[in-house]
C-alpha cells in the first residue's frame, strides 16, 4: 500500500465510486472467463471422475507425487546450498583486487549466465562422463546444472549487494582497524545477504522451478513422476499437470512469503542477521547467508 500511495492521491468520494465500478466490471469479466474455461474443460471431459479419482488413492501420492516431490526438494535443496556457496565465492572473486582472480571469475559467471540450463544439464549428463571417464547420475546432472546457472546469477546479485552496502559501513570498519577480509566477512557479506534476501529467494524459487528440467535426463522429480509417469499409468495428464502446478505454486508461494517475512522482520529491527547471539563466533568460516536462507528447504 505504501508503494501505491506514491502514485495517486487518497481517493475522494467520486474516485471511490469509480474504483468500485471498475472493480465490479473487471471482477465479473474475470469470473466469466474462468467460468468459460471451466465449462470448456467440462465439455472436453477433463473433470470426469476417472481422471481425478487417482488423486483420492493413497498409492498415487505415496508412489508418484510424494517421491517426485521429494526428489524435487532434494535437488533444489542441494542446488540451493551449492549455488549460494558458488555465488559468494565468485562474487568475492569478481570483487578481488587481483586481475588474475577477477577476470577468470568474471568470465565463468558471464558464460554460465548466458547458457540455457537445458543445455547445461544435458551436457553434464551426456558430455561430462566422457571427460571424467565415469557416469554422472541424473541427480548430479540436475544439481550441477542448477548450481552453475543459479550460482552465477547469485554471484551477480551478491556483487551488486556488496556494492550496495553504503560505503560508510566499510569505512567505519576500516577505521577501527579491520583488515580487508574481516570487513568482507563481518560487515559486507552479512549486510549484502540481508539486502539481497528478496533477490536471493526469488532466485531460489527459480531454482526450485528449474528442477523440472530434470525430465530431460529422466531425473524422477515432480514433473517426471507426478505428471509423465503418473499419466502413463492413469492416462490423466492434464489433471496430473494441474495438481503438480498447484503443488509448485503452494511451495514457491510459501518460500516467497517466508522471504517477505524475513525481509520485513529485518527491516523493522534494523538489519538483523538471525541467530547471531554470539558475536564472537559469528561468521568465522561459513558465510551466514548460506545457512539462514536455505533453512526452509531442509
Amino acid at each position, binding site marked *: 500500500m505504501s508503494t501505491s500511495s506514491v*502514485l*495517486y492521491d487518497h481517493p475522494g468520494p467520486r474516485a471511490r465510486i469509480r474504483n468500485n465500478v471498475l472493480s465490479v466490471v*473487471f471482477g465479473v469479466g474475470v469470473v466469466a472467463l474462468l467460468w468459460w474455461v471451466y465449462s*470448456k474443460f467440462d465439455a472436453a471431459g477433463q473433470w470426469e471422475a476417472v481422471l481425478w479419482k487417482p488423486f483420492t488413492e493413497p498409492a498415487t501420492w505415496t508412489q508418484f507425487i510424494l517421491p517426485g516431490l521429494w526428489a524435487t526438494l532434494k535437488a533444489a535443496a542441494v542446488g540451493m546450498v551449492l549455488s549460494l556457496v558458488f555465488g559468494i565465492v565468485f562474487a568475492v572473486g569478481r570483487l578481488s583486487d587481483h586481475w588474475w582472480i577477477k577476470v577468470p571469475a568474471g568470465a565463468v559467471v558471464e558464460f554460465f*549466465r*548466458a547458457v540455457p540450463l537445458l543445455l547445461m544439464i544435458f551436457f553434464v549428463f551426456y*558430455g561430462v562422463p566422457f571427460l571424467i571417464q565415469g557416469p554422472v547420475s541424473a541427480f548430479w546432472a540436475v544439481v550441477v546444472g542448477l548450481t552453475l546457472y543459479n550460482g552465477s546469477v547469485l554471484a551477480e546479485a551478491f556483487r551488486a549487494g556488496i556494492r550496495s552496502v553504503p560505503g560508510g559501513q566499510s569505512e567505519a570498519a576500516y577505521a577501527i582497524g579491520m583488515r580487508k577480509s574481516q570487513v568482507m566477512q563481518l560487515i559486507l557479506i552479512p549486510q549484502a545477504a540481508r539486502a539481497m534476501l528478496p533477490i536471493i529467494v526469488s532466485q531460489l*524459487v527459480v531454482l526450485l522451478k*528449474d528442477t523440472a528440467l530434470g525430465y530431460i535426463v529422466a531425473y524422477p522429480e515432480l514433473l517426471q513422476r507426478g505428471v509423465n509417469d503418473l499419466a502413463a499409468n492413469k492416462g490423466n495428464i492434464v489433471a496430473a499437470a494441474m495438481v503438480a502446478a498447484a503443488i509448485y505454486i503452494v511451495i514457491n508461494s510459501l518460500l516467497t512469503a517466508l522471504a517477505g517475512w524475513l525481509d520485513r522482520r529485518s527491516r523493522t529491527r534494523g538489519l538483523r542477521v538471525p541467530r547471531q547471539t554470539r558475536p564472537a563466533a559469528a561468521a568465522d568460516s561459513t558465510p551466514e547467508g548460506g545457512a539462514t536462507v536455505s533453512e526452509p528447504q531442509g
Partner: protein
Amino acid sequence: MHVFADPTNFDAYLSGFLWILKLTGASAVFALVIGVLLAAMRVSPVPVLRGFGAAWVNIFRNTPLTLVVFFCYFGLFSTLGLSLAEDLNLNNYWLGVIGLSVYTAAFVCEAVRSGVNTVPTGQAEAARALGLTFAQTLRIVVLPQATRSVVAPFGSILIALCKNATIVGTIGLMESSNVMKDLLNANGDAVIPIFLVFAGTFAALLIPTGYFFGWLANRLAVKR
C-alpha cells in the same frame, strides 16, 4: 567440427537458433505489453485490478515454465481447441510464444513496478503539489524516470527469455536444445564440441546483449 560440416546438421543448427530468435522476438513484444498493463494494474488504486495483477504474478512466477508451456499445449490447444495455425510447427511456435509471453510478463510487471518504486516519493508529491493530475504525474514525472531504472532488469529478462525459449522444445518444436539433443545422440564421439558450439552461440548472442543493456542503463540513469 566434422559434425557441422554435414550440411543437414548445419541446417538443423541454423534453424534451431532461428526458432529461438523468433520465439524470443515475438514473446518479448507480447510480454512487454502484457507486463506493463499488469504493472499498471498492480499500482492502480482499484483493489480488484491490484489483486488480479498480484495473482497473475504469483501464479506464473511460481510455476515452472515447462508446465506453463505444457498448459498452453494441452489446455489452450488440446482442450480449449485454440488452434493458431494449420501447420504443426507454426502452431507449436505460437503456443510457445503464448506460454513464454504470459510467463515473462509476470517478471516484466515486477521490474516495472520496482522501477516505479525507485522514483523517490518526493518527485510525485512535488508534481501533485504543482497541480498536475494523476495521469500527468505518471506521464511527465514518474514514468520517464522509472523507464530509465527499468532498462537493466529488462536486459536480464530478455536474456532469460531467450534461454527459456529452449523449453518450447518440450512440445516438439525443433529449437536449438532439441537439435543439440539429436546431434548428441547421433554423434556420441563429438559431445563436447557440439555442446561448445551451442553454448558458445548462446554466449555470443547473450553476453553482448547483457553489456549493451548495462551500457544503456548507465547512459540513461537519472543523476540525483
